[in-house]
């Protein structure tokens, strides 16, 4: 019996000794300053001020805003009529993001476990036709990343 237990331990020992643990961290872009975000005011802060505060955004809504919603009549040449008026038909926005990911893996001989968790802080700022902030939303998600994967979830 003792010999069998000894053999079992001898068999399991390399499985433990030859195992490994992998941890990885990914950081993309830089954290968003909540003090600066708190200074944004709807209807007052301009697009230029947003650029000054946060720099170039990661995403810009580049939609052409003149194609849809323009009344058909002005295209028909009629004397005395005004030129077509552009109408804002969709939100123009800037998006700022800060992304973090935590990776963790336990590599044993008979069993491997890996985990990859990615979260982002997001700030989206919408502008009206006068290039003033129409609305904005911020959400911090990176603080919800589990530090040691499975064990801290």
């Amino acid at each position, binding site marked *: 019996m003792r010999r069998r237990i000894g053999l079992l331990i001898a*068999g399991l020992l390399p*499985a433990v000794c030859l195992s490994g643990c992998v941890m990885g961290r990914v950081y993309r872009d830089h954290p968003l300053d909540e003090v600066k975000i708190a200074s944004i005011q709807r209807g007052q802060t301009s697009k230029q001020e947003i650029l000054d505060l946060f720099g170039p955004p990661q995403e810009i*809504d580049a*939609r052409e805003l003149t194609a*849809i*919603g323009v009344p058909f009549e002005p295209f028909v040449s009629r004397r005395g009529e005004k030129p077509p008026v552009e109408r804002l*038909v*969709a*939100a123009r*926005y800037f*998006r700022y993001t800060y992304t973090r990911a935590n990776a963790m893996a336990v590599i044993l*001989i*008979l*069993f*491997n*476990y*890996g*985990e*990859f*968790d*990615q*979260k*982002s802080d*997001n*700030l*989206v700022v*919408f502008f009206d036709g006068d290039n003033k902030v129409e*609305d*904005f*939303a*911020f*959400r911090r*998600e990176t603080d*919800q990343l589990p530090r040691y994967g*499975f064990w801290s979830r």
Partner: protein
Amino acid sequence: MRVARRHLLGWLLAAALASGCTVARYYQDVPLRGDPSVLVEGQSTKSDVLRLFGPPQQIQHQTDGDTFVYAYERTNYSSLRIQDPITRINWFTYTRQLENHDKLVVLFDFAGVVRGVAVDRHTQDMPVL
């Protein structure tokens, strides 16, 4: 007979040691917050949606207005592999990957008023393995 059985056992043990089980998890973003049922079609506005759910992951433009997409994604992967200890040829491999997401889609008209809401939650139904 005994020798043959011992050989067989030894071979199976070696094969078992050369085999392995892998479990992996992938998480993207965080579970949806807020209750979509509070949104009222024709009344709730884009501001209400932004206040309740935060910035959307995607903003899509449609011919009749914008669409906000909120999503939380999870993937569970598991595999079992049994390998020949000498030749390293796989005798048996079984893998399973389950990808699911929670998704909230809010449709607006040009005035920024909610015109449609769709919500789907599937990540909670995922089996452990």
